[in-house]
């Protein structure tokens, strides 16, 4: 086993044991607006909107 292989084995994999903790917003939608502005810059062409709303309604 090479030193490189030993180093790889001894190091934890990146991303393991990482909890998915959401970012807490400010309730005024400013976080969402900032986020969507960034997304629109990265993805100026939007995918097709989702399918129709229909089905079971109990509310």
């Amino acid at each position, binding site marked *: 086993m090479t030193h490189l292989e030993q180093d790889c084995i001894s190091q934890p994999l990146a991303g393991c044991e990482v909890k998915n903790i*959401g970012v807490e*917003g400010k309730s005024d939608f400013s976080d969402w607006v900032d986020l*969507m502005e960034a*997304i629109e810059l990265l993805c100026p062409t939007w995918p097709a909107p989702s399918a129709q709303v*229909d089905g*079971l309604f109990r*509310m």
Partner: protein
Amino acid sequence: MSRLVAQIKQAVAAFSECKMPPALIGGLALAAHRVVRATRDVDFLAGSEDADHLHEVLIGLGYRCVHRSEDAANYLRNDEGLDLLYAHRPIARKLLKEAVVYPTVMGSLRVVSAEGLIGFKLQALANDSSRIRDIEDIRALLSARNGQLDMQEIREYFALFDRMQWLDELIAENTDDSP
């Protein structure tokens, strides 16, 4: 200003003449309850008595109606979508009436309560169990509003959709995650 913000501002301004101004629901409404995620789904809960008026308003804004039923309608304008759920049952009408106004960069927005959003997420899941996003939204709302929610109301929604066992599991998750 982003296209999405402009779209929502325009719609909200046009809705001002409704008997009961529509309230935000869906992924976008989560932002009012401290859960922020990317979404461009624009979903409103509207009074069923405003359905015809809203239809005319949206057609006037250049949308076309791709689906409309007693319970819901979908409108499209090029790549912009806008969905309406009509409140005509007691639960939805109560949630619409009690929606809280939030001052935002898009103007004053009425937003359904966190408890009500969980109810509508459960309804969406009942319609399509593959909607993982709704599961994560419910989990995030329960976590972000832990200790501040009307759990009796939430229990009623989970019971309405036969999901009581899952609620117990989610509550246990939150308890485990507490510092």
